[in-house]
């Protein structure tokens, strides 16, 4: 089995190379076709003349034809630095990697909690369909999905940081407390709460419909008619089948573990990838944007691969290859 899995993974990765190259060409093309560009930020500075801007354009290589710019970028991408940022002159890979841990901590915690709580709520909603709990969960999920994240974020800050003073309003560590896990935990509470709220809403809906599907199947009825306890039916028969679509959903959501949360990171001053992306987008910092697109593309491929392998492991009917 393990040999099969490895060879399957190998070929899947080989097959995804054209896909990743395609993503990079489309991403690069769209970015450069979009109106405006990184030089606009210089226009806002009145001491900079049009001649200065032309000079900077040459210095940054933005005067080159787009295919030359693409090849220059692709070469840098393959040779390790991933290119240099326009506005700091630093290697893109370094800029991305220094933001990764923060995003992984925040998104990892939030996703893990959301999966646990969401699956639990969905499951309960399915087995107690049309109960008060089910209606509450459905309404709650709709509310959580309808309100913008920034509103939840600002409310959480206003209540817990400003009014009650229990928790810090933002950042990852108190200044001087870097690396202190207890301090990290305090800072994690609010952003995780807000992100989990939104993610739970999504997960619980998927989980509910998936469990509903499964518990209406004949084999569940058969299991019950055999006299098995609810617990045995639910965890021995239903659970494994019901989580299969959730594993696929996990595969799709995995890249967000690395791409970060745009709004929540901004509101909570969380030093992660989401904020890097927002800042890079504002400045039209093409090298960082391209780096992040490639990073996400790679994780989409990996996420789907992991999900497929996991499904094959859970469901013996599915064969890899």
């Amino acid at each position, binding site marked *: 089995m393990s040999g099969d899995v490895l060879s399957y993974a190998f070929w899947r990765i080989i097959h995804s190379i054209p896909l990743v190259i395609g993503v990079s060409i489309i991403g690069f093309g769209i970015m450069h076709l979009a109106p405006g560009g990184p030089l606009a930020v210089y226009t806002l500075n*009145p001491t900079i003349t*049009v001649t200065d801007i032309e000079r900077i354009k040459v210095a*940054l290589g933005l005067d080159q034809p787009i295919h030359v710019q693409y090849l220059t970028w692709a070469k840098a991408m393959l040779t390790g630095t991933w290119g240099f940022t*326009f506005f700091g*002159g*630093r290697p893109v890979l370094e800029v991305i990697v220094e933001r990764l841990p923060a995003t992984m901590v925040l998104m990892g915690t939030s996703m893990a909690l959301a999966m*646990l709580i969401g699956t639990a709520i969905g499951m309960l909603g399915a087995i107690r369909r049309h109960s008060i709990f089910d209606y509450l969960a459905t309404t709650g999920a709709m509310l959580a999905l309808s309100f913008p994240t920034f509103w939840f974020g*600002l409310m959480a800050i206003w209540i817990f940081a400003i009014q009650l003073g229990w928790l810090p*309003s933002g950042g990852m560590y108190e200044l001087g407390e870097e690396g202190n896990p207890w301090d990290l935990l305090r800072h994690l509470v609010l952003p995780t709460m807000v992100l989990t709220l939104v993610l739970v809403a999504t997960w619980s809906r998927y989980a509910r419909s998936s469990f509903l599907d499964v518990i209406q199947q004949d084999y569940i009825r058969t299991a019950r008619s055999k006299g098995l306890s609810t617990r045995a039916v639910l965890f021995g028969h239903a659970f494994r089948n019901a989580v299969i679509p959730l594993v696929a959903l996990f595969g799709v959501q995995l890249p967000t573990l690395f791409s970060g949360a745009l709004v929540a990171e901004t509101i909570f001053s969380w030093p992660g990838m989401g904020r890097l992306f927002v800042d890079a987008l*504002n400045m039209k910092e093409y090298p960082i944007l391209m780096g992040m697109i490639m990073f996400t593309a790679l994780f989409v491929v990996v996420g789907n691969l992991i999900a497929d392998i996991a499904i094959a492991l859970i469901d013996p009917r599915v064969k890899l290859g």
Partner: protein
Amino acid sequence: MSTTSSPTRRSLLKTAAASSLILPTGAIFSPAIAQRRDRIILGTTQEPVQFNPLLYVNAGAENIPEACLFDALWDVNEKGEFIANLAARIPTRENGDISADGKTWRINLKRDVKWSDGQPFTARDVEFTYQTIVNPKVAVRSRSGFDLIESFKRVDDHTVEIALSRPFVPFMWAWQNMHIVPHHLLSKEENINTSGFNAQPVGTGPYLLKSRTAGSHMVYEANPNYHRGAAKIKQFIHKFVPDQLVAYGQARTGEIDYLGVSGVPFDRWGEAAKLPDRTFFPLAQPWVQFVYFNCGKPQFKDPKVRRALYIALEMQKTIDDVFFGAYKRTLSYLHTSHWAYNHDLKDTGPNPQLAAKMLDEAGWKVGADGVREKDGVKMKFSMSTTAGFPARQATQAIFQQNWKAIGVEMEIKNMPASVVWGEYTTKSQFDTLLVSWEPTVGMDPDYTARAHSKMIPVKTGSGSNYTQYENAEVDRLLEDGVKQTDQAERKKTYARIQEILLEEVPFGPQGGVFQGQIAHKSLQGIKPNQYVVDAAWNVHEWSWG
């Protein structure tokens, strides 16, 4: 049905409760952050990414590392006077450092200055800084003023002599704006644009960069050998809080000692002023908000039409209603508090009746559809600014109503910053813009780049006269102004320029931009300075009272 049996529900609820983060109340309570007297935390919404003072783009946030780590030859103080920094004294004609014809500048440098790595600061560093600024391969943000240098000579280790192609009084500002970088480190770099120095800089400034946490903060320690005396506060922390409202919240809770640059949101000024233990002050920013008219478009060719359109606008009302009165009405490209502001300028608006009359006289008659027209051209145009800036949008909406009342149709066409301020502006493709801009050479009243007819980029390929404004008298006055050394004489010249600009309105000034700054009451030494955008310009003088 056994599916509803209670043990299952309980176990599920248990799972849910165990896995959710129910706030442990008392356990994570943190007492109000105690003020620490050995450090200061300054907050900004933006994060600096470039610490090389010649290369950064984002004034405001990136001025902070510049002020902490580097020095210029001279600074400008809160009164608008130049004060020597790395220079031993300010060059003037009186002390003989500037030649009688104003073309030769001799700059004497301090002798006791060291870079933070221990190397001595010399004339070679100043020469290298100049060479880097004019090096076409380096993405230096501006060469303004330096392009006039004809020759640069190192007289000795502590003296340089610069010859200019023509006398240029605002040359002082060029050096005030560009901080000196070390020759001994950067001259070895093959490509300064991507040099490691830009992230790990070595300067002569009051602080040394100790650590940087991407997306969070930067920590500086006082430079014990600083040539103007070691900073009084041992540690300086620059914290980045991207959301302005959250940043203000942190200034209230004490997580930030001084909220500079982006400041307090306008609608919170009243509240901020009443906070105990906090000092709140509105600080004049160098920018003035304008309506820019593209004089190259048929609707705006006639100065009388532009004037009519300008006086139809409710400028003070927009300031009061939209900006909570935080901006201050000005009739020129300068703040009313600038030394060169012409206080004889008269505000004749809003006067829609007169505006309508002037448009009639100029031949723009109301057509069948209620919109004015002349020679087949409708008085219809767009106004653009950065999208997603609610205060500016509200301003535009009021202007739209003002103009509609006199038969002028304006369409709001806002775009992302990277679009509107790109070629749409620099190639004069816009109809009108709503924009805030500061003077072009530091805070000198010189306005050549914006108002001289030789500075229209679509025609001459240089300058930033995006309105395509041309006036021979303004050209001549601008040329005179940069040669005059007597401030009283200069004031007259610029007063006349402001008078003409208000009469012909290539750009209609609305108000001088202010930002609400909030600092801890015990923090001493902060000197609000309208002549710089740099909140930390005198950081070495700050102390805890």
